[in-house]
């Protein structure tokens, strides 16, 4: 019997037992639904992670620290450590924090492939205000032109912030009594800085652009960080920190790599920096960490999906066994008429494949429809603004359908074997 006839005949057999076929397929559909939704959620989480990384890191740069363990276990130790004069900076609870100093920055700049080294001047302001508003907390740091920023009003000439100008986070627009994002452009914002000894200084800036409030923030502080020119950021830093133990010491610095969009070159510089005794992380490393977390969560959920599949597997075995028992005479007849045992076996395997395909398609389509409908709501609920939690890739859905068909076929093997081994004489005697 040809494959075409086997497929048609098995389809007809399933139509004759519609309810049983649909109920068995429904069990598989539950597994298909769970797995499709899980894969889509993992896609969404990975895409969100990527967005998170690439809106916070320049992919052609490296974040460099005094040692690699700052990236893995954080600055300082939670346990008492022997004092070392080389670790001059102290944390809030007396930890010795390994920080970079000017000598380190000079050494890093000399490493082959390094285009430039930037220290990150982030300075806490005493308060931020405007002529017609109250005072609010915040900080200032240098605008990084290599990171993608989204503005709701204004723009940057030459892609950078000129001295005397500021990029204002959107949250401050209403706080500082500006009527709209657009109305804030050109207005004056004052930043009061305070030294540890109490001396203060006011820096006035003109708003050049308003920064969209992103949800994709690592650390969650940038909503309160005003972005200045590098020169102004350093002036603010110098005023607040000069004469303190932390002056000109940095937890991390940004190393821009020559032709850093080339991953091989970026990796080579990263290795060279690490070989020199420093810690270095790329956007890809940060992304890998997020992906790893997502993967672990995905595996956990997939295991639950697979457990439902195990139940469906036995459902298919049961259904096909009953089908063989009910159709014993039909099998006997087909064999008497010359149908080979192999074709009989194929007939039942294809039936199982049909059940798998029906279940998988129903489950996947339901997951896509429901997922698409609830996506905006669920993304909003978990603060995924701008991103979708569920992202469906047709290749994955197709692969999943094929996988479920294979599972179903494997489940159908045993009943198919039983059918193929039936003795036609005995089968024809069955009442």
């Amino acid at each position, binding site marked *: *019997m*040809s494959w*075409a*006839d086997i497929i048609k*005949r098995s389809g*007809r057999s399933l139509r*004759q037992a519609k309810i049983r076929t649909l109920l068995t397929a429904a069990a598989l559909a539950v597994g298909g639904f769970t797995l499709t939704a899980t894969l889509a959620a993992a896609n969404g989480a990975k895409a969100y992670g990527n967005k998170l990384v690439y809106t916070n890191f320049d992919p052609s740069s490296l974040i460099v620290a005094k040692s690699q363990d700052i990236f893995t276990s954080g600055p300082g130790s939670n346990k008492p450590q022997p004092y070392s004069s080389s670790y001059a900076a102290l944390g809030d609870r007396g930890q010795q924090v390994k920080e970079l100093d000017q000598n380190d920055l000079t050494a890093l700049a000399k490493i082959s492939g390094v285009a430039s080294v930037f220290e990150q001047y982030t300075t806490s302001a005493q308060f931020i205000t405007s002529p017609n508003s109250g005072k609010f907390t915040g900080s200032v740091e240098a605008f990084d032109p290599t990171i993608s920023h989204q503005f709701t009003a204004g723009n940057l000439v030459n892609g950078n912030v000129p001295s005397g100008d500021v990029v204002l986070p959107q949250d401050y627009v209403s706080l500082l009594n500006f009527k709209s994002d657009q109305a804030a452009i050109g207005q004056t914002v004052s930043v009061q800085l305070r030294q540890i000894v109490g001396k203060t200084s006011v820096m006035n800036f003109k708003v050049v652009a308003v920064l969209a409030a992103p949800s994709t923030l690592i650390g969650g502080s940038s909503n309160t960080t005003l972005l200045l020119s590098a020169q102004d950021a350093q002036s603010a830093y110098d005023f607040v920190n000069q004469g303190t133990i932390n002056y000109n010491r940095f937890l991390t610095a940004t190393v821009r790599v020559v032709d850093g969009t080339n991953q091989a070159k970026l990796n080579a510089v990263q290795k060279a920096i690490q070989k020199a005794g420093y810690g270095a992380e790329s956007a890809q490393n940060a992304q890998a960490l997020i992906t790893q977390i997502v993967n672990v969560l995905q595996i956990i959920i997939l295991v639950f999906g697979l457990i439902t599949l195990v139940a469906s597997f036995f459902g298919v075995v049961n259904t096909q066994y009953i089908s063989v028992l009910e159709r014993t*005479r*039909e099998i*006997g*007849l*087909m*064999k*008497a*008429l*010359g*149908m*080979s*045992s192999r*074709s009989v076996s194929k007939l039942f395997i294809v039936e199982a494949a049909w059940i798998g395909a029906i279940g998988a398609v129903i489950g996947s389509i339901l997951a896509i429809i429901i997922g698409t409908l609830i996506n905006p709501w669920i993304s909003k609920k978990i603060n995924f603004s701008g991103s979708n939690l569920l992202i469906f890739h047709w290749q994955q859905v197709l692969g999943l359908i094929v996988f479920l068909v294979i599972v179903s076929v494997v489940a159908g093997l045993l009943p198919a074997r039983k059918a193929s081994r039936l003795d*036609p*004489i005995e089968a*024809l005697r069955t009442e």
Partner: protein
Amino acid sequence: MISFRNVSKVYGKKDNAFVALKDITIELPEHKTIAVVGKSGSGKSTFLHLLGGLDRPSEGSININGKELTKLNKKAMDQYRGQDLGFVFQSFFVEANQSCYQNVALPLEINRVPLNKRKAIVEDALSQVDLTEKIRSKAGTLSGGQKQRLAIARAIVTKPKVILADEPTGNLDSSTGDKVINLLFDLHKKYSSTLVIVTHDQDIASKCDVRLYIKDGQIEKVEGLKGAAS
């Protein structure tokens, strides 16, 4: 020529052994009607199963038109049943939920007859049994006589050399049974096939060219065969 040489069939082993056929040797002519007659348990169905390639003898050899059945492998045996034989059963064995067309097309599907040729062949077979109008009807909706005619159409659709009918009128009333037997004989003449009918009905047996009487697994007597002891 249908030739059985020293054919025995034993079911079970040792103490549980049951001898269904014992050292049968006979040669039956082609293109004739042959009745295999015997009581229940005589071994006539076993004879038919061996002839039909549904079972293999414990001893001896069976040769059909030069084809040595005992030497055929499984695939060749399937082909023999599919191409050389047509089966008609007492219980019809039509697929009730399938249409008459689908029932008759089954042997064509098994023999991989191209799809575009099937319709004409099935229509011809159904017209031979006067069921043309029922081509789209479900087999389950037919009367007993119609079901057996449908089974006959399925048996002749591949134009087999041998038609094996196992008590073909056993589930029919006498009037319908007569019509079915007449149909089988008419088709035998038309296609010049060998018709082997297993029956315990003497009226049917008397219509056949050759009558083979089996009792306790052995040939009791043969009628209508030149040179055979009667």
